[in-house]
């Protein structure tokens, strides 16, 4: 058994070039077993290419990696036997029903026919898509498709799961459902490598986060460390009555520093990382008779993280299309 190795993924200096473009330019990763590791970066940063190398779909041009103790090049077959991949594109067959997809994968993973059928039904029930079991996947909503996709990845429990932007394009409710599933998987001890563009997603789910930009890791640590290095978030307040904004500005100015009036005439914000201080400021506002429509204590966005780490906003570089390898022909 290789499960007891402290590191589920150990990558050093991974490089992948497509033509002139170095999509991944020396990525190092160390992912502990049983943890969720977030890889955070904008489109084109090299996240998908990294995941595809680790899942043995692409051969690295340089560097090496061991996944669950097996080399991703020389022992690719062993790696494939232990991991599962949920790609950025839905990795299920749209022309089959949800149930057929899961039976198909069960059979391909070595389950006997009755076991594969039972497992498919069990997963559809558990993921709340039982009523769509007999419907073609192309008629599924985005959220259902994503859940089926995750279900397809755990037909046989993997030791390590690659999740590539599992919630991109989902509405908030579907996103929460996918998050719940991921949390439940983690509770069962599955190691997860999660690629995402959203800081809050990484923050919600990941134990450690690597920020990746232009094919290299530019920061690594826990969500807390990362945010500390980036600076605080902000308290955003939206008033019921825009006319009260000057008053609110005065109150917030006393409680917090650097009040900022937003372009929305009813909205203002102030930098604030501390929930207690934010609560106090809100209390002061209501004591002063200012009616609040809503407020939030926002985390720094990916943009702000990038601004802080690189001195420039996160940009969508054209270097890595959403799925680089499909665009690039191997020589």
């Amino acid at each position: 058994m290789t499960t007891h190795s402290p590191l589920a993924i150990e990558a050093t200096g991974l490089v992948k070039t497509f033509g002139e473009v170095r999509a991944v330019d020396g990525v190092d990763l160390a992912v502990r077993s049983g943890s969720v590791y977030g890889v955070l970066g904008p489109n084109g940063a090299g996240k998908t290419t990294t995941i595809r190398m680790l899942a043995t779909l692409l051969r690295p041009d340089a560097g090496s990696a061991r996944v669950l103790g097996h080399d991703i090049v020389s022992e690719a077959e062993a790696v494939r036997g232990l991991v599962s991949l949920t790609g950025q594109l839905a990795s299920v067959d749209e022309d089959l029903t949800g149930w057929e997809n899961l039976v198909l994968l069960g059979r391909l993973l070595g389950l006997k026919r009755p076991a594969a059928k039972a497992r498919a039904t069990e997963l559809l029930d558990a993921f709340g898509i039982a009523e769509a079991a007999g419907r073609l996947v192309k008629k599924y909503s985005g959220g259902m498709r994503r859940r089926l996709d995750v279900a397809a990845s755990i037909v046989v429990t993997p030791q390590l799961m690659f999740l590539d932007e599992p919630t991109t394009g989902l509405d908030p409710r579907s996103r929460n459902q996918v998050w719940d599933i991921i949390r439940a998987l983690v509770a069962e001890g599955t190691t997860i490598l999660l690629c995402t563009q959203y800081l809050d997603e990484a923050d919600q789910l990941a134990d450690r986060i690597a920020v990746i930009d232009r094919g290299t890791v530019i920061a690594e640590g826990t969500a807390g460390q990362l945010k500390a290095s980036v600076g605080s978030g902000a308290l955003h307040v939206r008033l019921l009555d825009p006319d009260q904004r000057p008053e609110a500005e005065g109150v917030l100015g006393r409680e917090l520093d650097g009040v900022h009036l937003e372009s929305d005439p009813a909205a203002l914000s102030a930098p604030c990382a501390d929930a207690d201080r934010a609560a106090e400021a809100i209390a002061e506002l209501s004591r002063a008779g200012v009616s609040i429509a809503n407020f939030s204590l926002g985390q720094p966005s990916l943009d702000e993280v990038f601004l802080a780490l690189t001195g420039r906003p996160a940009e969508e570089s054209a270097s890595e299309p959403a799925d680089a390898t499909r665009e690039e022909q191997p020589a």
Partner: protein
Amino acid sequence: MSTSPTTSGRSEPLANETALRNALASTPRPPRPSAVSAALTFGWRGMLKVKHVPEQLLDVTITPVMFVVMFTYIFGGAIAGSTAEYLDYILPGILVMSVLFTTIYSGVALNTDLTKGVVDRFRSLPIWRSAPLVGSLLGDTVRYLVGGTVIIVLGLALGYRPDAGIIGVLAALALVIVFAFGLSWVFMTIGLLLRSPSAVLNAGFMGIFPLTFLSNVFVKPETLPSGLEAFVNVNPISVLADASRGLMAGNAATEDLAIVLGTAALLTAVFAPLTTRLYRSR
């Protein structure tokens, strides 16, 4: 579906939490499936697709049916003297054409898969590398059989009476399908090289259409200019059509059969490994 509310109190519970927990509980990993089992599973996938979209079989059956009817009744008299005589000549040829046209769809289907994410999933599974490809060919056999059977039934309805009877007809159908397997690998390679399913379809027809017409499927080669006749005589499709006619008439030349089987084996030997390689690396 009604489930008890989950603890997190969302407006719409995802599912029963116990069910989720049970479903996620680690299951022992079964041994990896054998190559045959994996390929058969992919064959099942191909058949499910036909089941869900049976209309796709129309594409591959209507054209040959039109050819049989049009050629027999419009050109039959002029080419062979009588429609009945021409039907005897053309029917085995159209059987060949019908099944070979269908092989293009093997490449189209593979290319369609590639444009979706599902291939990544298959490639990340610990299965025999060629299983998805061999399996889809097995599934395609259903199409070949349907395409071939439609032509044979149509021929019988129009008055075609093969001398070798049902055995001869089945032998011819089997031979054509074996050749189709070989040719399918070529189109699967093309399916992996081109960018869109419609490009594969166009390229396929651009290849197979002239090859079919520059064969003895429709006319006897002796009636052609000598340069063309030489080409038609070495065209494997001519040999296949001759062999099918021979099997149906009960007088197949062993040499033709050997050439057909040899060509199929050669195509498979060259293009099957090539396709597998491309499938892995793309």
